[in-house]
């Protein structure tokens, strides 16, 4: 009988341990209030645990009744992780840097009030989706810019191109000199799509800024000459050997290193590349940037207004979650880190870059001019979080197409496939 009791005891202990382990979570708690919130964040080398913990603590300064439990997304795809959490009834109260459109049909996000947006941001409607803003428009990016190596340009007598023809000539000159003309982190689908994002933004939206809205309305298609022309240019870049033959085996870190080591002349990448996470001030002195070239040389800037915090409409404490999200978004200390490390361009009303206590490179300031100057800005194709954001799943289709262009020259068929996937994504 003693043995039986011992066995039962062991079994209960094991069950207890299992239950205890199942109850463990990867969250860390900050604050000591009545409203217990969860905040899904993501970590990068620049935005490490200390950054998030400090930013949460700062945001809670004026919210004594709120406690925040941090949930760290295990991978870079925050949107996918948020969906997993929603599927298991654990949708966080506040979420960092997700794609709002994916969650809107299910009504999972709470819009920010327009008065607060008008009061605090330069472009208060920049992230508007069907009349609601779900991510505060705190900062912006230009993507892609074409970064170039000044020393290589000087060595090979290449001028900074302004038109597509000059861009092609520069590529041919570098190719003839056995220098890789364009760096590409082709093994990472999002990075492989940078040239296509540039072409779709500059050529398609540059000529018809309403193109994405028209695509939703079924008035235009990817198979139309305008978009096919952009695809043909993307394919031309492959055929003229603008990239390294092994470009689709290059990861992001290697691509950054290749470009900064002078192994390639140009690098289409987002403006975050000007941040200290990617480039030192010394390296930045040898790097310049120009917007993606157009046929007639007109400047078209693929522009994306970003932000961080989205609020769950399902939260038991929507008001507190919104207050926390607002406090987090308006904390200049957070934007200071993003400016320095991620090259973010500030979009706070009445607060220019000089008002932030930041140390940035000349490259950052040069590219920031594309934001502050009067010029033709269009939505960065596939990156914006407003009415111009693509239908769910279409970003992945665009990424796959960017890689497919390396081995498949049938541009018309690929455009038709994009149309088919778009129609499926919007349920037509």
């Amino acid at each position: 009988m003693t043995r039986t009791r011992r066995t039962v005891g062991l079994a209960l202990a094991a069950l207890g341990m299992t239950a205890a382990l199942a109850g463990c979570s990867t969250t860390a708690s900050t604050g000591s209030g009545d409203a217990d919130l969860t905040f899904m964040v993501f970590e990068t080398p620049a935005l490490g645990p200390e950054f998030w913990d400090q930013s949460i603590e700062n945001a809670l300064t004026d919210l004594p009744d709120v406690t925040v439990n941090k949930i760290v997304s295990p991978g870079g795809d925050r949107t996918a992780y948020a969906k997993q959490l929603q599927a298991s009834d654990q949708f966080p109260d506040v979420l960092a840097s997700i794609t709002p459109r994916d969650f809107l049909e299910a009504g999972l996000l709470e819009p920010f009030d327009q008065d607060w947006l008008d009061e605090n941001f330069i472009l208060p409607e920049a992230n508007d989706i069907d009349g609601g803003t779900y991510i505060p428009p705190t900062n912006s990016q230009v993507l892609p810019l074409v970064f170039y190596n000044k020393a290589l340009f000087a060595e090979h007598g290449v001028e900074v191109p302004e038109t597509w023809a000059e861009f092609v000539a520069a590529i041919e000159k570098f190719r003839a000199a056995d220098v890789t003309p364009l760096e590409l982190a082709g093994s990472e689908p999002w990075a492989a799509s940078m040239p296509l994002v540039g072409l779709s933004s500059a050529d398609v939206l540059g000529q018809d800024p309403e193109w994405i809205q028209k695509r939703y309305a079924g008035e235009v298609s990817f198979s139309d000459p305008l978009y096919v022309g952009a695809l043909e240019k993307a394919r031309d870049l492959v055929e003229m050997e603008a990239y390294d033959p092994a470009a689709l085996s290059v990861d992001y870190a290697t691509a950054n290193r290749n470009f900064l080591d002078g192994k390639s002349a140009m690098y289409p990448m987002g403006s975050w590349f000007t941040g200290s996470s990617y480039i030192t001030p010394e390296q930045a002195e040898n790097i310049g940037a120009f917007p993606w070239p157009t046929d007639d040389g007109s400047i078209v800037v693929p522009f994306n207004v970003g932000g961080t915090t989205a609020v769950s409409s399902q939260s038991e404490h929507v008001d507190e979650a919104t207050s926390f999200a607002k406090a987090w978004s308006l904390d200049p200390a957070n934007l200071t880190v993003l400016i320095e490390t991620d090259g973010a361009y500030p979009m706070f009303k009445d607060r220019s870059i000089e008002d932030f206590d930041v140390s940035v490179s000349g490259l950052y300031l040069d590219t920031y001019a594309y934001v502050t100057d009067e010029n033709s800005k269009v939505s960065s194709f596939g990156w914006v979080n407003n009415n111009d954001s693509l239908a769910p799943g279409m970003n992945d289709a665009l990424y796959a197409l960017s890689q497919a262009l390396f081995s498949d020259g049938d541009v018309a068929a690929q455009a038709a496939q994009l149309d088919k996937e778009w129609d499926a994504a919007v349920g037509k």
Partner: protein
Amino acid sequence: MSTRQRSRWGLAPIAGIAIILYAAFLLWPLVSSFVTSFTNSSPLKATSSFVGADNYVELFQDPRLYRTLGFTLVVVVFVTVVSNALGLLFALLLNSPSRNYRVMRTLVFIPQVLSGVIVAFIWRSVLNQNGLLNSTLQSMGLTDEAVSWLGTPELATFSICVVVSWMTIAFSTVVYTASLQSVPSELYEAARVDGAGALSRFRNVTFPMIAPGVTISVTLCLITTLKLYDIIAVLTGGGPANSTQSLAFFLVEVAFTENRFGYSSAIAMFLLLLTAVVAYSSTGLLRRREAHL
């Protein structure tokens, strides 16, 4: 109540825990997934509707199913053949009781105990443009420029096959080593007395005696490779241009990119059925072969 009966009842709580865990983490998800496959469930919506067999009808008309199935089968065949052939070869080479061989067997087994994600990260650095493989080939003068090991559908598929085989060879080696050590030495001595050479001893003694090991190794290789996901997710992300998406990768994409739990559950059911049929058929086939040998 006899001592034996009391002892049996004493073990009941442990069996109960096992049954609870089995039901909670295997049976319940399985039944739940089966039910979900007949709905339009989405990870973003609390409610869903019954859609009958629509998901299955759509699945068999979806060209992505056939593309991912084709890729999966290529990997399954390659990995099963290569890992079993090389696993048997390594086992034969390392089949010795001496300490040095024991150390070598441990080394061979290391890839199997590593997580697939870690293995994929290691190999990604090897297969990268400036990775170890290209550097070696270029320094030996075998290639002028870097080979795009992950950049074309054919080479990326081949690379994945090699990486997965690298892991499964370790498992096969252990299975075959255990099988070889269970072969009675008297049989070899008798064969030698009968004048059998090395090849003849392998064909007539070794191979028939390790037949159960072949069944285990082949079947587990098939099952492991059919549900391959982690290595692909890290090594190629399903690219280039979706050419290295396995069925399991397709399933996850549909669930969390397209937000279609119902449809992804139908894919899961198809994958489960396929795995069961393949595993059952191969086991049956190999068991019959064991009986013949």
